[in-house]
């Protein structure tokens, strides 16, 4: 049986509504994806039937909540093929994951070393490293980008050198959709013994990642971009690397013993999970993972690629339409400008016609500066979008452009 997008849509009740009297066309999936009934039900079930704090309780509800949460840790491990569940840490999101590593590396990185990112990073994978460099005196470098929005590998040997402590970059760019040459960058980093971190914010919902085949040190995912609840991220780290880092935050759950003078820390993963975890979020994320895997990550990616190609082709006939980031190797994001219009105006008029897109700089000011633009409008696709929706989007865009010119 083929990909049944209508059956999938039925799992997302939020899609079935009108905005300003028009059917909702939700194309802001790179910002956050909608949640299927299975996720909403899992969260309700937790609060209706077994809400309790985890890990410390001896009573039955606490045990059930702990079991449910820890089962998700195992599901995540299996999803990314990590070696052990202790390497899966639940965080508040990708920003929190990256800050955890960048903070911890403050104890390791020295002046004279460097950190390497790329020119297509989200602010969350720029600022924590800038802060690390300010604290340690290390140098922040980046791999440049070409006019297609692709990371350029020429000169990588000079940029990533024997003084490189960390190479951190995203798998897929949120602003442009470009799929980065992960393996080539990792290969060079590993050659010089640098640590590596891949930000999977945008790849999580579209690509299956095997952290051991990449041999990457750290990998991070965002629940809410993968049809799960907000406020939850995953940080995968190799045991030896996580053990080498000091904890990011102190508090309950992350300790072994505490006296008023000093404490010893718990082992992995708890060392990096201070405080009561986002239990409902973790349980909801477990349901989201199951849902994604039932539909099939490859089937989702193929469907979205079809939508992206269709949208790119269709919109090309709009006068002055220009794709920002026109790499052949892209996932699910159509970032664009239309000559003679401002992205903000396009966003407002699309919303008036029921179409939700994002406008602005997408937390990637350096990319916008490189393209000499103030921002873009961005349509991003998910498993539940349809070609009919792209037709509505195109018609709405044409109408907006006519009004604005």
């Amino acid at each position, binding site marked *: 049986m083929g990909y049944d997008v209508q059956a999938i849509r039925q799992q997302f009740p939020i899609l079935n509504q009108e905005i300003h009297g028009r059917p909702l066309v939700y194309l802001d999936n790179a910002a956050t994806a909608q949640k299927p009934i299975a996720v909403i039900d899992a969260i309700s079930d937790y609060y209706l039937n077994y809400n309790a704090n985890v890990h410390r309780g001896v009573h039955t509800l606490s045990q059930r909540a702990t079991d449910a949460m820890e089962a998700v840790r195992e599901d995540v491990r299996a999803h990314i093929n990590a070696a052990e569940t202790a390497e899966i840490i639940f965080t508040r999101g990708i920003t929190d994951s990256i800050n955890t590593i960048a903070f911890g590396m403050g104890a390791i990185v020295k002046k004279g070393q460097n950190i390497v990112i790329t020119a297509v990073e989200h602010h969350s994978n720029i600022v924590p490293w800038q802060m690390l460099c300010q604290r340690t005196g290390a140098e922040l470098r980046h791999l440049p980008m070409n006019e297609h929005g692709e990371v350029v590998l020429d000169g990588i040997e000079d940029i990533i050198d024997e003084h490189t402590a960390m190479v951190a970059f995203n798998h897929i760019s949120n602003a442009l959709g470009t799929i980065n040459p992960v393996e080539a960058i990792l290969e060079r980093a590993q050659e010089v013994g640098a640590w590596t971190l891949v930000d999977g914010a945008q790849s999580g919902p579209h690509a299956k990642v095997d952290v051991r085949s990449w041999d990457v040190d750290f990998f991070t995912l965002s629940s809410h971009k993968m049809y799960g609840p907000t406020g939850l991220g995953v940080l995968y780290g190799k045991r030896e690397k996580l053990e080498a880092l000091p904890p990011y935050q102190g508090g309950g759950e992350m300790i072994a013993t505490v006296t008023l003078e000093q404490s010893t820390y718990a082992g992995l993963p708890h060392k990096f999970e201070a405080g009561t975890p986002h239990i409902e979020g973790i349980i909801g994320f477990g349901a989201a993972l199951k849902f994604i895997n039932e539909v099939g990550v490859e089937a989702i990616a193929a469907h979205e690629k079809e939508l992206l190609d269709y949208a790119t082709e269709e919109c090309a006939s709009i006068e002055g339409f220009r794709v920002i980031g026109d790499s052949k190797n892209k996932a699910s994001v159509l970032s664009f400008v239309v000559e003679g219009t401002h992205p903000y105006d396009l966003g*407002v*008029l699309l919303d*008036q016609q029921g179409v939700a897109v994002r406008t602005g700089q997408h937390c990637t000011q350096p990319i916008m500066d490189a393209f000499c633009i103030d921002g873009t409008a961005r349509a991003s696709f998910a498993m539940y979008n349809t070609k009919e929706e792209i037709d509505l989007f195109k018609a709405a865009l044409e109408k907006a452009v006519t009004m604005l010119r």
Partner: protein
Amino acid sequence: MATIKERQEVLVEEFEFFDEWMDKYNHIIEMGKSLGALPEEKKTDDSLVQGCQSKVWLHAEKNGDNVRFQADADAIIAKGIVAMLIDVFDNQPAKEIAAADLGFLEEIGLKDHLSPTRANGLMSMIKQMKFYALAFAG
């Protein structure tokens, strides 16, 4: 000369003419297009209104007891919104601008329609205009 209140009434009447929000937006766009450009030398960082997703420049000058406003924006809807505010406030007494109640925004439905998006900066523009008026009135 029409007062702030009278100018608001005229705007409300204009917008009553349109049933559909797309048509109301079209009218805002037309107002934006007919507002002249601000000379480049007046588009300074100081005149940028904070809190808008697009760039909005607002320039104010004292004219006796009154305040003259000029503005520009790189997005046409933002420019239309600021054009509407200029329509209401330009060359009005500073004291009255500072104290003015902008009921027309609610009557037109603009407040409900625009404020949730935050990015349009409607509130920031009003705040900035009143701020100038207060400074000149003092």
